[in-house]
């Protein structure tokens, strides 16, 4: 399970990406599913102009959409009156997306990408995140909520 290891060993990479330089866009939306479309609409052109292909951009957008859906479902347990704060940073090396909530902290033990052979609804979101991004790191060291850091490097 290479994916899991990446998450556990994410610390070293995380320091690398702490200050990724480059250009930053921040976007804060209410925790209502109708704003997922706003997040996708804003993120698509950023990832494209960062130099990712249309297909890679679609996948980046998908994984971020899944992460935000999880915040609404799990961290806020369906409360639509909270906020989700995204920080998107682009530099020559790739794209970093930070997703911050103030809800229930992620239980890292639950973020086990399920085996795909297990055909049932649900459990796919985290699988997409781990497949698409090079770094997937959940930080629950703050007072409340979780900061999820997703990093995708550009192919050289």
């Amino acid at each position: 399970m290479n994916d899991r290891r990446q998450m556990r060993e994410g610390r070293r990479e995380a320091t690398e990406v702490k200050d990724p330089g480059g250009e930053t866009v921040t976007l804060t939306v209410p925790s209502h599913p109708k704003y997922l479309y706003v997040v996708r609409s804003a993120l698509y052109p950023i990832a494209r102009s960062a130099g990712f292909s249309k297909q890679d951009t679609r996948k980046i957008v998908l994984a971020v959409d899944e992460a935000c859906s999880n915040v609404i479902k799990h961290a806020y347990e369906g409360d639509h009156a909270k906020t989700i704060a995204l920080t998107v940073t682009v530099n020559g090396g790739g794209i970093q997306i930070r997703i911050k909530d103030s809800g229930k902290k992620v239980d890292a033990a639950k973020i086990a990408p399920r085996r795909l052979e297990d055909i049932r609804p649900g459990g796919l979101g985290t699988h997409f995140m781990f497949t698409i991004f090079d770094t997937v790191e959940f930080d629950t060291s703050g007072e409340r909520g979780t900061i999820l850091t997703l990093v995708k490097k550009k192919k050289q």
Partner: protein
Amino acid sequence: MRVEIVTEKTDPGFLLKLDGEVDMNTSPDVRNAFAAVFKQGIEKGKALFVDLSHVRYMDSSGIATLVEAMQACMKQGTRLRLVDLSPPVRDVFELARLASVFEIFSTMREALTGL
């Protein structure tokens, strides 16, 4: 930001055409459209076709909705056939490695064979 759903009752069964984005916000609408079909019931030997050519976006909640529909079809002894997947749908199916789980066809013509 919305999904439009057209349900047609045709000779070979039911045809659902989805147009738009299927995400956590809109998948309940898709689920309701499926539920309406199952409530009417699908006759033996007929199938439920879903045209995905105009789906500009689909996430795991859309996949979950399709998996549920497939399971409901199995219970009713009919089949779910997915037709003409758009590139974003193909992406998410590939990521979920679901291509082998569903019956997928390029065209409606092909989807009608071997029922």
